């Protein structure tokens, strides 16, 4: 049995072992062991040059990752949470995402940025948001959301092989999930969505931290005779529209579960693509289950009320009728 955290650590270890150019850099990744203990033990294994503790200077160390990537390295930059990544937004959006284009293809930025995202741990409004949709808005970036042990283990290596910047969003509630991981688990595809549970009556489209919420809902729905298909987006940009629309064309109903806020969300984008591609196959309007439009509250009951729960997804499916 391994945890998601350990699977991610195995992926970093593999990257640093296989590629001399790879190194990990971020706040407390070394001596402390990583704020979520993902990199625990790696400093002892790889030394301080390759497991590089940084000051609390998100903009400088993300920018330094960009510069190092431009100059032949394969940096893995860890940002503690997506909220803190806003301090590096200039470097990510104005530089990492633009340098290839602005230079007419002369330069590229093979950088991987990992960050924790999401709510569910009573960390309040400055450590819990889901801003994946913002990054998925930006041309020049690839955005990944590993929701399974296999993806935690397997997305990093292909992300490092990508010649362009890749952001990996690790939902904070996933680090402790545990399960079997094959001894030979390794790199996975980072372009396509995955059908995590096949079904015929409705398509539940989700990713990251809410993927298990979608599966939980499908399980409950099965008990009442509704066969739900669950799609894990995995890659938030570019979106695998084909997998989404081929499922919805068959089930004729779609519910999108997204821990981001509804307004201007990734869920809105997925919904729009369904309308554009398979509108006439729909038997009901596309439904969305998103976070309440509030800064994330601390109190457990309020936080639970703010983020998508299994019951919310089940209710949304039932509202579609059929």
């Amino acid at each position, binding site marked *: 049995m391994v945890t998601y955290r350990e699977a991610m650590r195995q992926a970093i270890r593999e990257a640093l072992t296989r590629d001399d150019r790879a*190194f990990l850099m971020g706040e407390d990744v070394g001596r402390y062991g990583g704020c979520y203990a993902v990199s625990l033990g790696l400093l002892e294994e790889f030394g301080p040059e390759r497991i590089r503790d940084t000051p609390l200077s998100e903009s400088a160390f993300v920018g*330094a990752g960009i*510069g190092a990537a431009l100059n032949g390295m394969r940096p893995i930059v860890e940002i503690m949470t997506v909220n803190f990544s806003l301090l590096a937004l200039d470097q990510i959006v104005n530089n990492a995402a633009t340098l290839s284009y602005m*230079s007419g293809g002369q330069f590229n930025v093979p950088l991987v940025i990992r960050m924790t995202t999401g709510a569910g741990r009573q960390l309040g409004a400055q450590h819990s948001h889901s801003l994946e949709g913002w990054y998925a808005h930006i041309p020049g970036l690839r955005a990944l959301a590993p929701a399974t042990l296999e993806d935690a283990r397997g997305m990093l290596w292909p992300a490092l092989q990508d*010649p362009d910047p890749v952001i990996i969003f690790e939902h904070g509630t996933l680090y402790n999930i545990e399960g079997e991981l094959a001894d030979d688990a390794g790199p996975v595809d980072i*372009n396509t969505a995955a059908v995590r549970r096949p079904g015929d009556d409705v398509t539940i489209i989700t990713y990251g931290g809410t993927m298990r919420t979608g599966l939980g809902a499908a399980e409950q729905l099965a008990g009442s005779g509704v066969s739900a298909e669950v799609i894990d987006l995995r890659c938030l940009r570019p979106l695998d529209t084909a997998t989404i629309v081929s499922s919805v064309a068959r089930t004729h109903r779609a519910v999108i579960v997204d821990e981001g806020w509804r307004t201007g969300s990734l869920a809105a984008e997925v919904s729009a693509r369904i309308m554009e591609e398979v509108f006439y196959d729909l038997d009901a309007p596309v439904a969305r289950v998103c976070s309440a439009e509030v800064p994330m509250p601390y109190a457990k009951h309020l936080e639970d009320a703010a983020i998508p729960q299994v019951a919310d997804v089940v209710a949304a499916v039932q509202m579609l009728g059929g």
Partner: protein
Amino acid sequence: MTGATAARGGGAEPAGGPTGEKDHGIHLLQQMLRIRRFEERCAELYSHSLIRGFLHLDIGEEACAVGVIDTLSPDDAVVATYREHGHALARGISMRAAMAELEGKVEGCSRGRGGSMHLFDAATRFYGGNAIVGGGLPIAVGLALADHLQGRRVVTACFFGDGAVAEGEFHESMNLAALWHLPVLFCCENNLYAMGTALDRSESETDLSLKAASYRVPSWEVDGMDVLAVEDAARSAVETVRAGGGPHFLELRTYRFRAHSMYDPDRYRDKAEIEQWKQRDPIPLLAERLTASGVLTDGDLERIEGEVGAEVDDAVAFAEAGTYEATEDLERFVTSEPVRAGEAS
């Protein structure tokens, strides 16, 4: 210590005395004149709408780019700002490729994707053309980090203006470069104005080299109108950085003779102040010195002007004969070509 340079923070003092021989002085003069005449033509082309967008001229500040970049080797890297025509030309981007870029042609050094503010050139390790004030500093730190990790004795020269020292990225980068002892030469072109805001209206501490020194980065104040002083300071700093001496900081005290950009009515500067600085124009300053020492004759100057004028004419003709990239290619280079690794695996 030369009269034009003051050291602070424990750096080795720059070698004194002008950098000598005849050909070299003339080379520096010609480089500054290339930038000056190129940009004067840019202003004309702007008024004819052949160049659009924001156009920031370096006129008056040429000694900074020329003096520093002349001391770099081809393996070194340069990170510049949106006022970077001079740095690009000094670094070796052809006037043709620069002018074509300004005219938005595919023959431009960034295929017309960048324009005046985003000149790039992999061949000369010219990393832009960054139009976010302070945004280039972290990248310079990262370029240097890669050189450090790969054991290369390479220097990254990072140019920015006085306005950048108000940005957090300046402080974060100065600290990180010093903490990790990285080979970066920070070159602050202090032209006294962050766009229209005078330094003393922007900074509680106007001594910029003091800020760098507070991060234990050896820092020098240099007369940025005197190309020989700039070159002396830069040569010494580059040698120290290359030898493993950690980051260094040059405050190049300079002045732009033109407005911030072509949109700027320049209401915030006293005309007398501008005229006073024009008395210290780096080009006549060097020409007079070379003439006085018998290195430069009127004939030389005429010949140089002729060569530079012909180069500018040729660049303009090249740009105007250039082509526009097909709009079908609009989305090329958003990501790298030809295939993405993820798709190949």
